[in-house]
């Protein structure tokens, strides 16, 4: 009896990723951006995807919507969405409708995802039309209410061009676009990377309260452990296209099992405590072309490397109560 046999309520949208493999075709050959990822994303939780550039966190989020573009390709696996079945089996119009109904995606650079030549309101109407909404007036009304809910001046924002808005405001407009069609799953890709600390806190606060209010399934993709620590219920640590550790935020932060997670936490510049306690993580972020095909993908940067790491792929081991870790060092102990 698996988890998804329990009928979810009409509103709850959990995501169950099974054995997902995604590869990219490059001029240097075909490389796996994700390899055998199996993961449950819980409804009504905020899940943080953390990892360096090239770790596959954005690819994983795109794959959930079956939105991998060539030269990328989904090679295998399933993505079961509560109440909708396997997203990877859908094509064309049904897929588009499913995305519109379930997913709201806030892009990394919201400034780049808005049309510079159209007012925000006109772009909202385009969004409504492309999803077959007849009551465009109602849509605008809702967008305005939503904008005001998250601290924007609704009238002003709807009549603005994107260059008239500050970075924090654009990011909030991105949220309005993502939520106005009543998305059940909110995905934020690096929502605060270009923002200063005060604006970052304001955006995180808004996401947190909207998430609660609407009972969303929220995914935050970030490379900043601070962002995850502030808002995520659970953390998924990714490295070179693998989930290397997963679990509740508190447990993962206080008791990280994987050497990579330990290194990430130790590398955070902290506001208090001894300056010398922070240590940079050695080496460079993974490059798809140089990821070893056999053995542990992190071994080149690992302090606990042993001979078994060179030849044998680590398997998921239970950790953090209901989480997992993939490391030979943890297996042994």
């Amino acid at each position, binding site marked *: 009896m698996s988890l998804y046999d329990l009928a979810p309520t009409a509103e709850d949208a959990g995501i169950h990723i099974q054995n997902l493999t995604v590869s990219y075709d490059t001029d240097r050959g075909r490389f796996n951006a994700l390899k055998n990822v199996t993961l449950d994303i819980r409804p009504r939780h905020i899940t943080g995807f953390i990892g*360096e*550039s090239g770790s596959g966190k954005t690819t994983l989020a795109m794959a959930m919507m079956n939105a991998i573009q060539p030269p990328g390709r989904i090679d295998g696996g399933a993505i079961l969405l509560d109440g909708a079945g396997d997203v990877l089996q859908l094509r064309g119009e049904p897929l588009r409708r499913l995305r519109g109904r379930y997913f709201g995606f806030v892009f990394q650079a919201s400034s780049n995802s808005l049309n510079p030549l159209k007012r925000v309101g006109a772009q909202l109407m385009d969004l409504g039309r492309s999803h077959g909404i007849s009551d465009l007036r109602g849509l605008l009304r809702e967008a305005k209410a939503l904008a005001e809910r998250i*601290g924007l001046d609704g009238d002003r924002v709807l009549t603005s061009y994107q260059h008239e808005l*500050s*970075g*924090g*405001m654009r990011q909030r407009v991105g949220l309005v676009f993502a939520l106005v069609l009543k998305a059940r799953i909110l995905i934020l890709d690096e929502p605060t*990377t270009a*923002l*200063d*600390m*005060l*604006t*970052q*806190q*304001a955006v995180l*606060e808004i996401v947190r309260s909207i998430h609660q209010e609407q009972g969303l399934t929220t995914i935050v993709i970030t*490379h*900043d*452990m*601070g*962002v995850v*620590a*502030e808002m995520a219920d659970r953390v998924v640590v990714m490295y070179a296209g693998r989930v290397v550790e997963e679990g509740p*935020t*508190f*447990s993962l*932060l*206080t008791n990280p099992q994987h050497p990579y997670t330990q*290194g*990430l*936490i130790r*590398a*955070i*510049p*902290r*506001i*208090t*405590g*001894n*300056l010398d*306690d*922070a*240590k*940079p*993580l050695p080496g*460079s*972020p993974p*490059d798809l072309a140089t990821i070893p095909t056999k053995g542990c993908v992190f071994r080149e940067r690992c302090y606990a490397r042993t001979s078994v790491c060179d030849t044998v792929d680590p398997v998921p081991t239970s950790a953090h109560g209901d989480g997992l870790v993939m490391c030979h060092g943890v297996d042994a102990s």
Partner: protein
Amino acid sequence: MIEARNLVKTFPARGGLLAQKAVQAVKGVSFVIPDGGAVAFIGESGCGKTTIGRILSGFETYDSGEIYYNGEDLSALPPRTRQERLRKVQLIQQDPYAALNPARTIYQSLAAPLSWEAKRRHKEKGWIERRAREVLELVGLNPDVVLGKYPHMLSGGQRQRIVIARALTVEPDVLVADEAISMIDVSLRLGILTLLQTLRRDYGIALLFITHDIAAARYIGHDGRMYVIYQGEIVEEASTDELIRSPVHPYSQALLSAVPVLRGLERPGQDRYIPLGEFSVTETSGCRFAPRCRFAHDLCQKEKPPLIPWEQEDHRHACHFPTPRRVVAEPLEGHS
């Protein structure tokens, strides 16, 4: 040593039908960058901190005020001579992707400033490559590996190291790092900070660290000095440790509060406070921060607070009601 007194910079109004008002980005700022010192400017986007960095590195002019460079007043010099004097102040910008020419190898990027330097100092031919290898080693890169590469073949952290190496080709007195780590992977940020620290310690290069990330600014050195900038004005200044331990201006406290708390490893400061509104640039005769300040009184709306000492002479603030508050996170037992 660089000393700036009362620096003012106004960006002219843009014309057209809807003429915009002139923007005064820097409103009379004074500070000192000692030889081999570490200074941080802290503030939100749009507070003018970047403009100050650009003025110091000769990319921008200033309207009034003085800059003394090793005792010489640059304001009196013609712009070209001034720029020549500021050659030893090198700017490292936020985006290492945009700072390097994608069509040039790393060697070509480094050789350009070096050949200029070689001509000036009448060096022989082999000097350029020798020096290029030297600066790459200084920033912790292997010259044999990177010299022939193009920027796209390197990670963000490696690219930022190249940008720093290029700045080192002129043997600078001061490095101005403007959000130099904010676009780099978190795991690599600390490495860049450590590199800047090392350059300061071993070669006496002063650092001006411009950022909104106070936690990172702390890593340029214990003995550093912080200036908190709000809308083009200094609202608080103190040694790094003092400012983090006992900030008295509500804006400094807001910035310190906004540093993410690592739950489980840290507990939030008991007075943590985060204003959610964005700043407006409406003119006021009072304190500019008052509209966003939860501790503002009538006086704050009417009268502008001067920058005055708090307890010690070197901790200064511009607030009518300075109050120390505990806003930064504290490490929990066993997880320092």
